[in-house]
């Protein structure tokens, strides 16, 4: 979807006035919907819907040997698959938008209504409206969005790299011989802007939801190591995700910075900075997009990202404290 100059100016003026196209101010997020235990056969899973962005994260655990240089640590691997939605955006890029026709709009309106009905939790940072401009992300072009997938997974691994943000030593079973390897698989189902933030929250929640089997005893026979695992389904350890990073994408539009850009805003931005905030520190800073930023603007971006990141982290923790209700989860609700 290409925006015309007039549309871009409209978005830009909105940002300037601190009243964005969908009525949010510059530091507001769109509504989120968060679910856990969506994938029944994974060790932990979460699904996050941030307006039109839909992400599904599942955690699988395997036994592996630790890296020789880090014998006390387990392993954590991220895999991002965005084929299901990327093709879409690619296709839609080629199509002229026909959003104005009324049946389409009403169709979408009713979908939105359904979405509203089935919202379980809304993160209480804002009361923004879901963005109605839903499609196309230009940076998805290329072979199945592989480049974007690699970028996201690299960013995640570097954000989780520090032992202060995520403690991998808990995943060690037997020093130098055996450890748990966590596969965090991220499936992007729909892309409505701001993938980094959505994914980071979903990953954090999925890791919190993960149940690592408890090891009962370890038998060593020469070099053979046998591990027996507790078979009680409810007896397992949880991971500490207190300091797991939350990413915030700060987009510079005109002279001002915004968070949680939707697709249209992403297209108007000069450059953006992804900051991963863990506790009250940064764990990763990544500048994406083509534009360049003035050092002063960059500092402003970082400050804003830091502030919003901490607020977002608080909000996520607040939501997780409430016991999630049972019943149907997933796509049928």
């Amino acid at each position, binding site marked *: 979807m290409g925006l015309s100059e007039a549309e871009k100016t409209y978005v830009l003026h909105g940002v300037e006035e601190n009243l964005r196209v969908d009525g949010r101010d510059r530091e507001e997020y769109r509504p989120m919907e968060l679910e856990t235990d969506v994938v029944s056969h*994974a060790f932990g899973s979460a699904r996050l819907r941030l307006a039109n962005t839909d992400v599904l994260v599942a955690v699988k655990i395997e036994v592996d040997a630790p890296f020789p240089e880090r014998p006390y640590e387990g392993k954590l691997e991220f895999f991002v698959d965005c*084929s299901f939605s990327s093709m879409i955006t*690619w*296709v839609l890029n080629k199509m002229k938008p026909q959003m104005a026709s009324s049946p389409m709009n*009403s169709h979408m309106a009713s979908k939105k209504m359904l979405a509203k009905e089935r919202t379980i939790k809304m993160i209480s940072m804002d009361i923004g409206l879901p963005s109605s401009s839903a499609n196309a992300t230009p940076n998805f072009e290329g072979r199945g969005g592989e480049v974007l997938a690699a970028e996201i997974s690299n960013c995640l691994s570097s954000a989780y790299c520090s032992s202060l943000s995520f403690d991998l030593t808990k995943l060690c079973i037997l020093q130098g011989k055996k450890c748990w390897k966590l596969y965090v*698989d991220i499936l992007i189902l729909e892309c409505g802007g701001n993938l980094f933030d959505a994914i980071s929250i979903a990953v954090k929640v999925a890791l919190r939801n993960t149940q690592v089997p408890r090891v009962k005893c370890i038998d060593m026979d020469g070099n053979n190591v046998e591990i027996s695992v507790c078979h009680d389904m409810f007896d397992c350890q949880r991971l500490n995700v207190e300091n797991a990073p939350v990413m915030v994408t700060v987009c510079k539009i005109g002279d001002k910075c915004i968070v949680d850009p939707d697709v249209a805003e992403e297209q108007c931005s000069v450059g953006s900075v992804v900051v991963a905030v863990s506790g009250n520190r940064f764990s990763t800073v990544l500048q994406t997009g083509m534009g360049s930023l003035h050092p002063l603007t960059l500092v402003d971006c970082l400050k804003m990202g830091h502030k919003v990141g901490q607020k977002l982290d608080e909000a996520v923790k607040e939501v997780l404290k409430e016991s999630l209700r049972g019943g149907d989860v997933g796509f*049928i609700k």
Partner: protein
Amino acid sequence: MSKKELLSKIGLRLDGRRAHELRRIRCKLGVFTEPDGSAYMEQGLTKVLAAVYGPHQVRGSKSKAHHDNCLINCQFSMAVFSTTDRKKRPRGDRKSTELSMHLQQALESVIKTELYPWSQIDVYVEVLHADGGIYPTCVNAATLALIDAGIPIKEYVCACTASLANNDVPMVDISHQEEVMGGPTLTIAALPMSGKIVLMEMSQRFHLDHLDKVMNKALQGCKDIRQILDAAVRLHVRDIGSATGWALTSYNE
């Protein structure tokens, strides 16, 4: 007998179903806003998402375009966490290529392709949880997504599996457990209203004499599935329609 039987003496299967019973089917149309049509489908534990884009201009090389009908492009992929052992790649292996082709074959038989010359329709299916009968669930989900996208089809295309238990009794909708236990699996994709079969595939073997009854069983399964899909579509159209207000106008008349 060392091997456990697929059908017990009192006629119950491993998961407690009877021979003619399908697994629980739940589905929903229009789960996403971005694609032109989307659907979610659950058959037992098998969970599939489908999205349809198009009809639109042919993407890539123009030489693929047909002057008299539209190109149907199917992509089948499985989430890496969909199976018990984590998969290395979500697509690109031989099994997914084969399934994409079979899916395309089934859908080409129902879509009125002649209405969209020089165009293309993309169908993407993603398996979230694989527990037997992946192909049938994909076909059924794709049908719903096509309907949600408003693409004209001749009739529903439904798919179902059937097997032969104890070398005698045909049973419908095979689960992963039953697939693994052994026993032949017959997969058919059919047009249930006209009773035509668009795709048939079989693994392992049974005597030719049994083919008829197993096939009929699968066909009956397709017919049952069609009813469920039809009910879901009607419900969806009613919801969408009432949101636009047509339900109200017809009420007043």
